[in-house]
């Protein structure tokens, strides 16, 4: 099936972005409206395509659109082609839907910013790039979107780049992402060298013929790409700093959509990972490490956005874990991705709403008791909270429990280890999210009298409310009759082998709930019952201190990569000057030196010249004589 409308999904926001950027200050008055309209337009097209898709039979649902031949050299043929299938439509609707809501939210949130037009231009650019990422029909097209969202993310993190730390955060994000991108380009190169094609369809078709070694290499490289974009261990360090961007950005890019691109990549490449068990295991392990890593950092953060960012990292860890569990887990990874898109975006918007009312204060130790002043924010945030810690029947319960269950049932020690990690993560999640809610909304007020907390305008709370509905209902809808799993089945191919269950779903749910209750209870005891000091106490254990320093991720990167790199650069600069250019200058010196040495023979005395001529003549005659002898 082909469709002629796919390109407009990308073209609309791209056009919006270009218009807003080129129009300059003239567009300040209506720029935000245009941006929102473009995003909304893309959402409408997405809905239209979705409805068309529903009307077709399962095999006929995927549609493609070939625009033109992009790169064609020898056997390297890449079309500018788009593909919309059951997997990408989920993303299209999430990106455009949540994206539009966040556009609306930003109209109010950014209303006092002089550069609001530019902000909307970047947002539109992001939407376009992200849509290209999920619609591209080959790895190379995906790569364009992949770096495109990286660029948009860079621009938006550094939106207030007049502050040097924010500019550094933006640069850090870009560079970390580039390390991941290196993995993606290597994966594409290996795929082309082994399979002779880089399109999804082609790779899927040929993958069975390739050696496991090659597929493992491709898989590992794709995983590297995913760790960069999705802030997974060991490339996770940029996400916390990325909170420098305006809060709507954090909600859209660094919670709901862009950071989940890694999960999309792995799920999209299921045919590679399913044929390369080692790579798949690596995916699961990385996911498990990150979900604990992020959760632990989350417990120690006082900055509300950074706590949420750590939570995002952890939740994406769940998704990656799910995707690393193979055919049994893909659908749940995507489900968790979608539900997370709702509740995390909602909570970020909630955090933005709190900051909006609190003069951009982000330190939760200076909040407290805000539920009275911001009832709507509290309600929506609370629903998101219930969803993320996995209380039934909220969304997170369905998606997260499924991942834990699949992990346990993965078999052997692997299953038990991964399952336990996921369970433990759930408990820690409950703890730190409860902490966030208590510090922000419960307890006594700890803010200055200068602050006048107030509820945000309707343009801000409406998106939050809509997302909260998603946090409540989406899990239920997706699991009802296994709807999402069946929907995605043609893309991710379910495993026909049904492995023995280690734990029954009910057991997992009960276990998880108990642990969640433990986490919540601990947080309540620790934070609700006690006075919260305005400044974080310093006489804490070494573990707390390490957790506050983001588990030393930055210290490690600085010591190992930054310092070495800087030293290497300095050494090379010196080498270039002294040795390589030194050799060149040495030759020049040599010529100069020999010239001035020979100059001394030019005494200026005619008679000595005559002498030299005579000696030369005699020498010449002698030489001729010797030669002819």
């Amino acid at each position, binding site marked *: 099936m082909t469709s002629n409308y796919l390109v407009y999904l990308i073209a609309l926001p791209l056009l919006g972005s270009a218009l807003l950027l080129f129009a300059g200050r003239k567009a300040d008055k209506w720029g935000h409206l245009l941006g929102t309209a473009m995003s909304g337009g893309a959402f409408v097209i997405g809905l239209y395509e979705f409805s068309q898709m529903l009307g077709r039979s399962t095999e006929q649902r995927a549609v493609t659109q070939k625009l033109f031949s992009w790169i064609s050299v020898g056997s390297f043929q890449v079309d500018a082609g788009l593909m919309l299938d059951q997997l990408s439509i989920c993303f299209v609707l999430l990106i455009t839907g949540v994206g539009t809501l966040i556009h609306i939210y930003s109209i109010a949130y950014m209303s006092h910013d002089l550069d609001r037009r530019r902000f909307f231009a970047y947002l539109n650019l992001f939407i376009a790039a992200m849509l290209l990422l999920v619609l591209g029909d080959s790895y190379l097209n995906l790569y364009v979107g992949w770096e495109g969202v990286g660029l948009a993310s860079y621009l938006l993190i550094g939106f207030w780049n007049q502050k040097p730390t924010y500019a550094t955060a933006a640069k850090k994000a870009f560079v970390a992402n580039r390390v991941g991108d290196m993995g993606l380009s290597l994966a594409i190169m290996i795929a082309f060298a082994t399979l002779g094609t880089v399109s999804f369809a082609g790779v899927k078709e040929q993958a069975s013929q390739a050696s496991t070694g090659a597929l493992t290499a491709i898989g590992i490289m794709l995983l590297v790409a995913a760790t960069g974009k999705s802030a997974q261990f060991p490339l996770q360090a940029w996400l916390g700093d990325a909170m420098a961007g305006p809060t709507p950005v954090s909600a859209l890019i660094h919670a709901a959509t862009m950071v989940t691109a890694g999960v999309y990549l792995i799920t999209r490449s299921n045919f590679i990972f399913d044929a390369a068990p080692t790579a798949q295991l690596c995916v699961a392990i990385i996911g498990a490490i990150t979900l604990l890593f992020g959760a632990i950092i989350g417990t120690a953060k006082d900055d509300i956005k950074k706590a949420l960012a750590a939570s995002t990292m952890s939740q994406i860890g769940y998704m990656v874990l799910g995707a690393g569990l193979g055919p049994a887990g893909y659908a749940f990874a995507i489900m968790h991705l979608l539900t997370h898109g709702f509740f995390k975006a909602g909570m970020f918007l909630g955090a933005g709403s709190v900051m909006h009312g609190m003069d951009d204060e982000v330190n939760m130790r200076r909040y407290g008791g805000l539920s009275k002043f911001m009832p709507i924010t509290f309600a929506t945030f609370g629903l998101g909270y219930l969803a993320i810690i996995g209380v039934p029947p909220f969304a997170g319960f369905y998606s997260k429990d499924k991942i834990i269950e699949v992990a346990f049932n993965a078999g052997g020690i692997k299953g038990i280890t991964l399952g336990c990690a996921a369970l433990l993560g759930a408990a820690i999640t409950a703890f730190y999210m409860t902490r966030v809610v208590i510090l922000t909304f419960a307890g006594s007020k700890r803010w200055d009298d200068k602050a006048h907390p107030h509820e945000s305008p309707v343009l801000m709370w409406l998106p939050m409310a809509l997302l909260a509905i998603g946090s409540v209902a989406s899990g239920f809808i997706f699991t009802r009759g296994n709807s999402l799993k069946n929907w995605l089945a043609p893309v991710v191919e379910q495993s026909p082998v049904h492995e023995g269950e280690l734990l029954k779903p009910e057991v997992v749910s009960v276990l998880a709930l108990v642990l969640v209750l433990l986490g919540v209870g601990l947080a309540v005891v620790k934070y609700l019952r006690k006075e919260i000091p305005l400044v974080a106490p310093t006489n804490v254990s070494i573990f707390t201190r390490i957790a506050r320093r983001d588990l030393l991720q930055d210290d490690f990167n600085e010591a190992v990569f930054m310092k070495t790199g800087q030293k290497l650069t300095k050494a090379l600069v010196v080498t270039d000057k002294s040795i390589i250019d030194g050799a060149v200058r040495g030759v020049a010196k040599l010529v100069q030196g020999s010239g001035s040495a020979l100059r001394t023979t*030019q*005494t*200026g*005395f*005619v*008679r000595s010249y*005559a*002498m030299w001529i*005579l000696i030369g003549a005699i020498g010449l005659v002698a030489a001729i004589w010797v030669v002819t002898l």
Partner: protein
Amino acid sequence: MNAANYLYVSALLFTIGAIGVVVRRNAIVVFMCVELMLNAANLAFVTFARINGNLDGQVMAFFTMVVAACEVVVGLAIIVTIYRSRRSASVDDASLLKR
């Protein structure tokens, strides 16, 4: 008479001229020594012409004479000019181009 003897005279004259050029300071004397060398060469040319029985050497000798004449004209002019400006005919004094 053996023609080789003329060549010996020529070589002797040339050597005297060469030594003169190298050891004497006075420009005029140096100049005369150069003339001596030229004439030694002329003698050798004529002798060879005689030995080989053709006129090539004699023709060359005429050329040499013409060149020598030109050289005298230019050379003497230079020497006189130098003498006028520097009040000296010593060749060692004319080493200003060194620097």
